[in-house]
């Protein structure tokens, strides 16, 4: 099976609420890099949460890395989640621990030997260009650096799949492009990468397949950059 992620008529509905995702079907091949786009509330985050088994599909079937997620027992979820690297808009770092401890956490959870952990953490920090900052607390770093710590934590276990939810949402354009280039590098190394993002300019700078969501459905529309959005509105008025 070459599909790393396979959505088959998947719907998700909040308990007692509306459908956030309705009848979504798509597949992502191993080694692919995809953007998930769409307006706020279109279901981008929910899509990523479903893949990471942070919530469960109300209907349909979802296969991730050969695992049928509806058959996953709740005590198997942590082990499954360890196989995915996740990056968040708000970084989700532990601010009372050093950069090293943050990045080491996924390895500590799995119980590796300290020597191995040390080597792996330094390698991961090296690949995001933060090798000298091991002993620093995350709050003393800039937003871009904090996000790179988050990325180092996501890749330190060498996962086959990286999920990133608005990873550049809190970064200035230069840092954002830097971070995106980082994801591209991991993708070149064979890692499947899914990025939910609003950053049209970054997508244009690093073009890849786009999965565009609107009102919980996949559509053929493409995201519009803010600069052009103004023209569209102006045209409408005129």
């Amino acid at each position: 099976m070459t599909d790393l992620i396979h959505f088959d008529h998947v719907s998700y509905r909040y308990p007692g609420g509306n459908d956030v995702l309705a009848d979504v079907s798509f597949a992502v091949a191993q080694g692919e890099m995809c953007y998930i786009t769409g307006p706020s509330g279109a279901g981008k985050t929910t899509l990523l949460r479903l893949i990471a088994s942070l919530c469960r599909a109300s209907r349909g079937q979802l296969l991730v890395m050969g695992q049928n997620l509806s058959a996953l027992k709740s005590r198997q979820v942590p082990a499954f989640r360890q196989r995915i690297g996740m990056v968040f808009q708000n970084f989700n770092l532990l601010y009372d621990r050093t950069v090293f401890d943050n990045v080491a956490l996924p390895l500590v959870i799995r119980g590796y030997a300290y020597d191995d952990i040390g080597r792996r953490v330094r390698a991961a920090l090296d690949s995001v260009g933060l090798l000298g900052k091991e002993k620093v607390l995350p709050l003393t770093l800039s937003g871009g650096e904090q996000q790179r710590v988050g990325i180092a934590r996501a890749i330190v276990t060498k996962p086959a799949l990286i999920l990133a939810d608005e990873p550049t949402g809190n970064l200035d354009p230069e840092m954002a492009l830097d971070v995106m280039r980082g994801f591209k590098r991991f993708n070149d190394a064979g890692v499947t990468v899914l990025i939910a993002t609003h950053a049209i300019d970054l997508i244009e700078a690093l073009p890849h397949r786009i999965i565009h969501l609107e009102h919980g459905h996949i559509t053929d529309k493409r995201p519009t950059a803010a600069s052009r959005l103004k023209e569209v509105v102006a045209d409408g008025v005129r």
Partner: protein
Amino acid sequence: MAFVEAGLDRPRWFARWAKEHLRVLLFSLGKIARAPLAAGLTALVIGIALALPAGLFVGVRNLSTIGYSWQESLQLSLFLKDSVSAERGLALAREIGAEKGVARTNYISREQSLAEFRQLSGFGEALDLLQDNPLPAVIAVTPERQQTQAAVEALVERLSQQPEVELAKLDQQWLERLYAILAIAERAVSIVALLLGLAVMVIIGNTIRLDIEARREEIEVMKLIGAPGSFVRRPFLYSGFWFGLGGGVLAWMLVGVGTSMLDAPSAELAALYGSDYRIASLSFVDGLSLIASGIVLGWAGAFVTVTRRLAQIEPK
């Protein structure tokens, strides 16, 4: 499940388990060391809660030891008729000594009784005023230990039937009463221990609950990156362990200080009763079990709270 885990050996489960527990042990200790006052106060409250039943236990134990030491010397006295000669008395003492249920007999002649009384009572001069020796010869009979009360009473009855015996006397009613009271006290100590044990669990549970609330985000992050429940739970269980351990040690110290403060006055009281009894504190084994129960309660209190709370914290 193909899974990229290149280049890393996962140690065997026992090495992993031991390393992880050592890590969390030191981590939780470090956390306590960073806020020693708060942790110390929690441990002190637990210590007091544990020291109360432990102190009562020591009290009851001491009282029953006193009672028991008197039971050791439980004797029945056969007062012989004045007409019985010293030879006959001695022979009778030997006869009774051979009987079933009797450990030992001791014949005390009238003269010995008088000498002893003179020496011990302080009424020596008063005795000199008397023409005759007013004291009877006595055979002190020590019953074999571990006899039922009925057997001892039957023995008294049988011996009082002897023609040479004027009066057979066994005074153990007060002992029965003491034991009945101690049985109630022991039961009361159990109840107090149970309630305060629950209190310890609640105290630790509450401390852990506050800690969990303070570290809610951290728990969410850990769950996000795939930490299993046991991994998230472990530091809190170790906090409970440390609080229980600290509380147990403090409780032992409190009981020790308490008994040493009571030592001098109780020795004085014992001396007034002609005893050299000294109040006993917790034995080493009892102290260790006090600490162990602190640890068990701390761990259990933490476990209940953490299991309940962590289920409620899911990553958003």
